């Protein structure tokens, strides 16, 4: 179905090729998962299949491609559109018209299909993707998962032979991502549609994939093979596989189900070993609350976002806020930094009500890193960006070399922040906030689009900040990150706190908000890979 021979490509203003002498064959009906660190060329590779690379981006291209018997180099993205369906990462920016049904028809209209054919195909697509109930809805009223399914439908209506998706779930919360991925799996197994998917969160898709392709980046040659073979040789793996590799579980378990027998065995062993050890819990002292949210109510546009929410966070505590999209996590964070003011109730910082205090004023002691780093960065260099924050707070410029080093940004101090890759940008935005040295750090969804390695180093960085006495409050969907670094989890639902407790307890008692390791052992001593390895070392 897809055949690449000796493909080499470099972007217009770069010397280094992103892809070098790449060869790949994908059979009809195959589900290929493409993995690799951010910036390793996954998106570039996927864009070769329909000719967006090099037609849309320019640059120099060498080698041959055949997709569904056509040559994307000759036909270009428009010519390839009937053979290759292409779905982008961001559900917000790939819609042309405002209603679902019209969006499904858009591609067919471009191809001048008969109205009767269009009618039939729209019905088919609505059923295939289980979105018939959305047909009359306006796109902007849909949830992220629904949007991505409509985006898939919008390309399926041309009945392509290959479906190519560039990190379709990286902007979605776990439930929405699940919706999209099960849809893909169904399309692949029921219709035999060839699917090429790039994805960071392997734990959700690796069981569906027939083969995995790992791109190491810098034009190095990729690894292609069965999932278990490739994952054995790759460092970017989910916690389950990390543990399995460490402990040499063979055959390599890809799902929790496959890992359970190994885990049972290990638990029994550890039980035996640790019986003698006592549980040394640090005695609970009652430290002073730094952030104290008391019975806060807030609604906008008639929608009740917070309904009598109370939360108290102590000095040097690390709290993760979890919960569905729209459960009020971001609204809560914005209340703490004063961007939103409660309709009722109060927010206290260091025992003082913040009513009437300026955001700009509060911001010198509270750093809030928003979800989208693009809304922060504007300066010509990262250095200017950091100086700007320092000046705004009336601090002397400079003096942040250490911070840059800790965030692995030293090399980029003089580069244009918007040119950085996704993960680097995220860290640059974080640096731009943290450079004011706030005591409380609020993070809104800091792991969107990050790969395992970047998440790992983010977790370490945040832990280190906490070690220095900073208070961290983070809203996230990422249970693995929470398992690695948060002490306490507060789960929000419908504007209230539903569960609030130590991470270990919450994770071992929950089915949804639970890390892979926690699901594997169902034991509150083990929620992250490090826990398991530490227990074995003793």
């Amino acid at each position, binding site marked *: 179905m897809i055949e690449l021979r000796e493909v080499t490509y470099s972007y217009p203003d770069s010397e280094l090729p992103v892809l070098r002498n790449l060869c790949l064959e994908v059979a009809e009906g195959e589900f290929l998962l493409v993995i690799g660190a951010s910036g390793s060329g996954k998106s570039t590779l996927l864009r070769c299949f329909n000719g967006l690379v090099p037609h849309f981006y320019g640059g120099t291209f060498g080698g041959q491609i055949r997709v569904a018997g056509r040559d994307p180099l000759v036909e270009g993205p428009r010519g390839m559109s*009937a053979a290759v*369906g292409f779905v982008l990462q961001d559900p917000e*920016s790939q819609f042309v018209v405002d209603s679902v*049904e019209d969006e499904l028809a858009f*591609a067919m209209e471009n*191809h*001048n299909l008969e109205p009767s054919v269009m009618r039939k195909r729209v019905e088919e697509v609505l059923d295939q993707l289980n979105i018939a109930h959305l047909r009359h809805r306006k796109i902007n009223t849909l949830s992220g998962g629904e949007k991505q399914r409509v985006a898939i439908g919008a390309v399926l209506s041309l009945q392509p032979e290959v479906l190519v998706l560039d990190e379709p779930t990286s902007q979605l919360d776990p439930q929405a991502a699940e919706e999209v991925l099960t849809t893909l799996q169904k399309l692949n197994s029921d219709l035999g549609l060839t699917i090429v998917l790039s994805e960071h969160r392997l734990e959700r898709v690796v069981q569906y994939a027939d083969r995995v392709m790992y791109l190491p980046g810098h034009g190095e040659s990729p690894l292609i093979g069965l999932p278990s073979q490739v994952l054995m040789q790759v460092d970017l793996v989910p916690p389950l596989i990390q543990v399995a590799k460490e402990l040499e579980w063979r055959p390599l378990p890809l799902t929790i189900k496959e890992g359970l027998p190994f885990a049972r065995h290990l638990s029994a062993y550890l039980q035996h070993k640790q019986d003698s050890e006592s549980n040394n819990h640090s005695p609970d002292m009652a430290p002073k609350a730094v952030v104290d949210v008391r019975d806060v109510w807030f609604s906008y546009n008639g929608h009740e976002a917070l309904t009598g929410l109370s939360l108290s966070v102590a000095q040097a505590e690390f709290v993760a806020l979890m919960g569905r999209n729209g459960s009020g996590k971001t609204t809560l964070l914005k209340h703490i930094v004063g961007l939103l003011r409660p309709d009722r109730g109060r927010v206290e910082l260091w025992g003082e009500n913040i009513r009437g205090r300026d955001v*700009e004023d509060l911001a010198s002691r509270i750093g809030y890193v928003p979800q989208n780093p693009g809304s922060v960065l504007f300066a010509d260099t990262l250095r200017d960006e950091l100086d700007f924050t320092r000046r*705004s707070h009336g601090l002397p410029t400079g003096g942040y070399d250490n911070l840059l080093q800790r965030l692995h940004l030293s090399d980029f101090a003089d580069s244009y922040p918007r040119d950085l890759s996704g993960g680097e940008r995220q860290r640059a935005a974080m640096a731009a906030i943290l450079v004011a040295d706030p005591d409380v750090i609020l993070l809104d969804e800091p792991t969107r689009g990050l790969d395992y390695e970047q998440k790992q180093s983010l977790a370490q960085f945040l832990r280190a900040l906490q070690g220095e006495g900073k208070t961290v409050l983070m809203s996230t969907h990422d249970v693995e990150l929470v398992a690695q670094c948060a002490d306490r989890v507060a789960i929000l639902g419908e504007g209230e706190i539903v569960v609030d407790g130590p991470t270990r307890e919450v994770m071992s008692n929950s089915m949804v908000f639970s890390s892979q390791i926690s699901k594997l052992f169902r034991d509150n001593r083990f929620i992250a890979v490090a826990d398991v390895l530490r227990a074995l070392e003793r």
Partner: protein
Amino acid sequence: MYHTVTWMLWLFAALLPAMLTRNPLYLATLLLAVAVAYNTIGRLSPMASSWGVFLKAGLILATLSVLFNLLTVHYGDTVMFTLPRLTLHLGRLAILDLGGQTTLESLAYGLTSGLSLVAILLIFATFNVLVDHHRLLRRTPAFLYQTGMITSIAVAFVPQMVSSLQEIREAQAIRGHRFRGIRNLLPLFVPLLTTGLERAIQLAESMEARGFGSVSTSRSKGRQTLQRVLIATALFGLLAAAFARSYYSSVPLASVLLALGSAALLVGTLMAIGRGVKRSRYHRELWRRRDTLVSIACFTSCAITAGFWLRNPNALFFYPYPRFSLPDFNAVIGLALLAVVTPVLAAPKMRRHNSD
């Protein structure tokens, strides 16, 4: 919901009297009818929030119209009160004459003009709320479709820009940034521009990957250049004609010919380009019985209004000068105007549909 063609007829039936009449009683009737139509069915639309904006704009314009007439027009026999007079001179020419005798007639005239402005704005506002824009776009001739499509996408960007502006403003505020002058706008403007650009590139990719764009015309470079030159010439011709019209008080025949010729050239070229783009249109609209009813009502209303106007254009007009008298009211025209309310017939059904 109604068929797009029904809405187009409705727009015509509402606009025709709004344009033709200057009688405040007819205008008030029309306004009331439009407001009822919006209130019963327009409110259900997701676009409903835009109506208020139109209403506010209309009221501001109407107030301005009343004030302007009251202060600058001194005709009319019924003097209500006398204000101190202020005359601005430019050389020997009096260019502005404010205050002085304020007449009831000028108030009536100002109110009527204001009413007509509000009516026209609200008719468009209601149409805007009720009609499905993309379906409307599909009704446009092929050669306009591409341009219309791109315009509609550009318009759709505006709300996105507004929401990202809010996000950016917050992000800069929490860095301690205070906005004091023009230079301080840079941290707002740059992210807004770059975010918008990134979004535009993604959208372009997505559209290209779904086969949008003219395939056949892009083949020959020479033809493309010719088309561009022709469009530029036509636009220049139109501009020159418009300029001539505003410059000379009497419209010279040459400029009329130029305008017509340029317009024909523009349409012709666009049609030639449009012929290169082969694309079909997805229609899935039902023509229900209520569409027939509303259409008949709108059509009859247009016929009655036009009939009255053709027989005697002054029948629809109300001129308060020199002495104020109450405007006439013809019950037949009044009834005809109520055709604008007929879409309300289907309100119960639509409400049920919306609550699904």
